[in-house]
């Protein structure tokens, strides 16, 4: 039988993991947009270590 602590830990996992992926997806989209909005210009590339 599940203890109250285990039930809370499972609830935490159930909430946190999907939230985590949702936040990361937002990060991904925002980063993609940022990368597209501010492309590297040719003069930046010279001597750039990217």
């Amino acid at each position: 039988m599940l203890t109250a602590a285990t039930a809370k830990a499972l609830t935490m996992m159930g909430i946190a993991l999907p939230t985590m992926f949702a936040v990361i997806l937002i990060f991904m989209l925002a980063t993609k947009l940022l990368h597209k909005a501010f492309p590297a210009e040719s003069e930046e590339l010279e001597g750039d270590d990217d």
Partner: protein
Amino acid sequence: MEAMLIQYPWLDELLMGFLGLSWKHVVMWLIGATLIYLAVKKDYEPALLLPIGFGAVLANIPHSSAISKVVGEEGFLWVLYQGGIANELFPVLIFVAIGAMCDFTPLIRRPIVMLFAAAAQFGIFATAVLATLMGFSFEHAASIGIIGAADGPTTIYVASRFAQDLLGPLSVAAYSYMSLVPVIQPPVIKALTTSAERKIKMGYENEEPVSRTAKFLFPILIVLIAGMVAPISVALIGSLMFGNILKESGVVDNLSNAAQSELANLVTLLLGITIGGTMSAERFLTVEVAMIMALGAVAFVFDTAGGVLFAKLLNIFSKEKMNPMIGACGISAFPMSGRVIAKMALKEDPTNFIIQHAIGVNVAGQVASVVAGGLVLALIPALAK
């Protein structure tokens, strides 16, 4: 002996160290010595394990003035604890330093790697569940799970709020296992992947270079998003990104350099010895601590498995196959994990260079571990009610 002490009261003052000594103190000296040995001889996280080991020795000398809590005679380790750990200052300052050291370029170039980092945080939650099954309270179990973030400052930050009495063992477990990444990760990865999978090559086509403007705006963007989702994480993610913007702005090189060197060194030194100071025998020599050390290893195994299995899952749906080993770099042990995985790929095939991808996932792990820490910080008080 008692008669002698009554007759010569000054003897008590001179001999109090010997009279108060117990086998537990000696065991703690040995543990401190082991940490120092690992730091000096084995080069395992020496910047932390050396001060922690020495702090543990200082804290376990009977009637040690270093940890005195007597008003007006407070020991320096107790003062440092109150001033830097109990109020979460040291972990936050360490994050400024880490941020100044981080280069998020590979992450901006290939944002999909953030998914691996999210998957690799699975260990936090699985370990928390396991810890409750072993009898820990929810708050303590969640704090133990955070070892799986592979992120020492986040572990200390969460523990200082919800498991102050376990701060010493939690920190030691987190840093010990971070230094054992080369030992823990390879067997888990090998057990979960085939040789053919480990040989998958990853190209660098369609990856555009990253502009300085994008690198400068990235930390602001991340802080705003993470802060809106979990305001409680702002101190952690905010300090990490503050350090990064110092670096990427390009106008305060002196501050960025100071954060990367002087600040990092000073706070690491103070953090380590203060953590060691919390490792008193009565707190450390318990069955609970032995269980925490075991759960720390489990957390790293779950993290590695979570990342690798998620990468394998993505490969089922994606046209361009990825080397599933890079999923294991989603833990925050940077850059150790990235290097270990890159080496494994080279061992399988000397022409397989996946270091850039591995490091990209590893940097994403830094961000994801802080997000996971923020979520745990937000959820513990909400669920503990």
